[in-house]
């Protein structure tokens, strides 16, 4: 297992916190940047980093306003998030990189691939949601700012919502660890979803020239991700039947093999 360490760097919104894993002996593979879903943090990649970090330098940042990264001063767009990730790539003096993103993080990948076409090599998306207007209306109403209560009932409600999407293999300790990130910055934790729902993923995906692999687990964005297939110029969808949230921890070895096979193909 590669050792994972945690660090900070400076980007346009302040400090950005990231996890880093790398092989004990340097490899020739390009570094892999990994962006998380909302409202989590780079913690979702912790187990996976230990495995995939054996093959390449991996960087999993906390999106600005999540985990331990400083928040922007107002609700950002996916492009704003991608710009901040670009700052991190520059701060780390990385040249060519591969990117991988989960839900909101997948949109950040696409925006970054468009913003830096020469620098971003291959793209892995864990879900590539194409929403209808009706779905957007429904999702926006669901993912709003938390209303705090004196009696703590907002916490039980949030916990149950989290547990609803629990995948096979989740223990209570695992839920508790991941859930913790959803409690951070409660006044702005909705900004990630807000940015995701305002991003035109269909239009953006059509313009991506890089090779794209979409993982489509059986989660809350499965249906929406199926719609991405005809939009991609140079991509394919790998449907992960029976896999749900947490698959990076539950199916670490298989997931890592799939990621490496795609990234290393043709190199």
């Amino acid at each position, binding site marked *: 297992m590669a050792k994972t*360490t*945690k*660090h*900070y760097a400076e980007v346009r919104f302040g*400090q950005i*916190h990231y996890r880093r894993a790398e092989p004990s002996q340097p490899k020739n593979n390009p570094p892999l940047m990994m962006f998380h879903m909302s409202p989590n943090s780079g913690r979702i990649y912790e187990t996976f980093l230990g495995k995939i970090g054996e093959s390449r330098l991996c960087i999993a940042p906390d999106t600005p306003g999540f985990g*331990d990264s400083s928040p922007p001063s107002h609700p950002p767009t996916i492009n704003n998030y991608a710009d901040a990730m670009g700052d991190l790539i520059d701060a780390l003096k990385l040249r060519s990189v591969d990117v991988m993103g989960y839900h909101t993080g997948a949109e950040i990948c696409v925006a970054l691939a468009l913003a830096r076409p020469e620098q971003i090599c291959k793209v892995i998306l864990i879900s590539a949601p194409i929403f209808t207007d009706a779905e957007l209306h429904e999702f926006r109403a669901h993912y709003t700012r*938390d209303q*705090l*209560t*004196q*009696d*703590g*009932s907002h*916490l*039980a*409600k*949030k*916990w*149950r919502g989290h*547990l609803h999407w629990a995948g096979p293999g989740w223990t*209570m*300790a695992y*839920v*508790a*660890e991941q859930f*913790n*990130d959803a*409690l*951070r*910055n*409660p*006044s702005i934790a909705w900004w990630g979803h807000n940015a995701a729902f305002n991003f035109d993923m269909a239009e953006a995906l059509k313009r991506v020239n890089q090779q794209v692999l979409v993982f489509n687990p059986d989660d809350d964005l499965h249906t929406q991700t199926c719609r991405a297939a005809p939009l991609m110029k140079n991509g394919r969808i790998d449907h992960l039947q029976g896999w749900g949230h947490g698959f990076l921890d539950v199916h670490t070895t298989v997931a890592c093999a799939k990621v490496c096979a795609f990234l290393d193909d043709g190199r």
Partner: protein
Amino acid sequence: MNQSVDNVRVTKHYGQGRFGQIHYRRAAPDVPSNHPPLILFHMSPYSGVIYENLMADLGRDRVVIAVDTPGFGNSDAPLVPPTIQQYAAAMGDLLDGLKLRGVDVMGYHTGSKIGLDLCLQRPEQVRKIIMISAAIWTDEELIEHRAQFAKAEVAADGSHLVKWWRAVGRWSMEGRTLEQMADGFYARTMRPDISWWGHNAAFGYKTAVALEKIDHEILILNPQDDLWDFTPRAKATLKNGHIHDLPGWSHGFLDVKTTETAKLVRGFLDAP
């Protein structure tokens, strides 16, 4: 955060200690200060996040560093439940890594015991000590406390979170908002499998014995919280210090009474 124009920025960093990475917050004035750096240790479970507002104020005239105790916040955990002496030794590692010489220390509940033991381990390096509570328990009280602060059970229905939230509310002082409670609550709920280690270490530490050995100047702040009844007992063994009662103050005072707390801290640390 309090938005005073004079307040300084609080940044976050990692250093190294014997248990792995140690996460800390730092605030410092624009121009170097003659005051010794002030090192802050938090209560259990929580993290250095509880000091953010106070640091933005105190950082105007000195370097202030608030450390996440190993196993809390973002600091790596020891492999087995540690003692207060081991926590303090890890804090010493961080001081060495940061190349700090003379320092003042301030600790909150469990953190106050860490500060005390750091002084015992490094009497030449620690100058003055501020303790937020200095609980001395009887054997009977310790049995009760150990049962109350045992390993947390995570419930499928989320009732553990409701229980913790209500406990935070129960001991919060008047004026503490729900938003202030919510901002730090994540640090209270991290790593429930090992978050009892801090209390476990605190209950195993002989505060009265440590106080008897220390000649350094000590200020004990005694807010009217869950340790209000146990702190006055420290007076019997305090050699060079005094207890300052804070009636009506309780948890959350670092955010509700930030300016007043900074004044108390400066008054003690900067007195000749």
